[in-house]
């Protein structure tokens, strides 16, 4: 599958979790795509941690404003009904459980629901940003990611070995191969991506997977 198609598929699967009126925060990169796949008939309000509720899509070219940006610095718009607030309140909102869902990219996740996405020691150290606050507070914490890294290694681990962003915080993991929920019993396979076999997923997953009788599909 093309990379863009994969990303669309992941975004669509995550968007299907959203309910009418939900407040949702999307991380930069892959998660941004979720906004393009909101199911028809429902309205979702996007929060950006730098200080807006009601973030809208990119402006028309030439209409960008320096003081209307998302958490990655990219230009956004404000939808009718939007509000601006300072970062102190924005993160109070996030940590206090008022945001229904946050979606983040990940370097690694594990079967306990931990996530690593802020540094690779000795290599990349972009820093934490708002990610640690987001994973500690949102009601649903979703990782949107590719199942394997570019060397073919599983990014779905028994235990993350990179420095953690959040310890036991995820509720859902959606990759180009599967959707998996973190449950008290362990990592539960929920859906397979169309064209991916159960065997493919098991081979591509380092974590212990709970395989229920009925597994759905997504595309």
């Amino acid at each position, binding site marked *: 599958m093309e990379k863009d198609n994969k990303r669309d598929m992941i975004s669509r699967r995550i968007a299907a979790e959203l309910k009418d009126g939900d407040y949702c925060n999307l991380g930069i990169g892959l998660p941004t795509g979720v906004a393009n796949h909101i199911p028809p008939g429902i309205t979702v309000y996007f929060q950006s941690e730098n*200080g807006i509720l009601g973030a809208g899509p990119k402006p028309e070219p030439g209409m960008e404003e320096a003081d209307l940006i998302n958490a990655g610095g990219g230009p956004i718009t404000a939808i009718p009904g939007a509000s601006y607030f300072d*970062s102190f309140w924005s993160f109070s909102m996030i940590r206090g459980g008022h945001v229904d869902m946050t979606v983040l990219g990940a370097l690694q996740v594990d079967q306990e629901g931990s996530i690593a996405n802020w540094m690779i020691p000795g290599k990349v150290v*972009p*820093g*934490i*940003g708002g990610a*640690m606050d987001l994973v500690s507070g949102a009601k649903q914490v979703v990782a949107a990611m590719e199942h394997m890294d570019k060397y073919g290694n599983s990014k779905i681990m028994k235990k993350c070995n990179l420095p953690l962003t959040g310890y036991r915080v995820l509720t859902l993991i959606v990759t180009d191969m599967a959707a998996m929920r973190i449950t008290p019993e362990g990592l539960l396979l929920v859906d397979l991506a169309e064209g991916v076999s159960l065997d493919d997923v098991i081979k591509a997953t380092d974590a212990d997977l709970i395989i229920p009788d009925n597994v759905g599909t997504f595309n």
Partner: protein
Amino acid sequence: MPRIISGKEAAAMISSGDRIMVAGFLVSGCPEYLMDCLYERDIDNLHLIAISTDYDDRGIGRLISKPHVKTLQVSHIGTNRTTQTRYKAGEIDIEFVPQGILMERIRAAGAGLGGIFSPVGVGTVIAEGKQTLEENGRTYILEKPIHGKYSLIRAKKADKLGNLVYNKMARNSNTVMAMGADITIVEVDEIVEVGELSPEEVVTPGIFVDYIVKKGE
């Protein structure tokens, strides 16, 4: 009541070794003119507190290309390669602070608190060595106040009492930083007379502002 001064005068107040906070999020809400003025100063060993170091050539970014900054408390440096290079080379020490907790810690300093118990980063390196509290089955870590000597902030307009209003999302870290430092210097596009702002529209009350600089002056 704040005094109106020039950008040069503002920059001249800051000395080597000072703890300074600079407001803004990826340049939005950052006092870029004050950054330019500070860039011209021949000082070093600053301790810089900011959400991020912006871009290599904009916002806080240029400060990092000179020896000005020795230590950083920051949540993100991913948009500034110079910061990453100098950090990896051991030329700058960094304490990474989760963005919301950075706001909390600065606010704690500005509001006279001794610290807060935070749920953020429990089970990660952020929690290492920190006092914990167990409450209703959750673990919290003690985060201490972060205080600055100077805060350099940015608003759209100030009245002559230092009351501030912002453009759109640019308020981000400005109010908490105005509270969290001994001396707050605000850069604005416009200075208006007392009474021109409505009491309801003021975002940052003038009590937190010590000096006002009009951008470019």
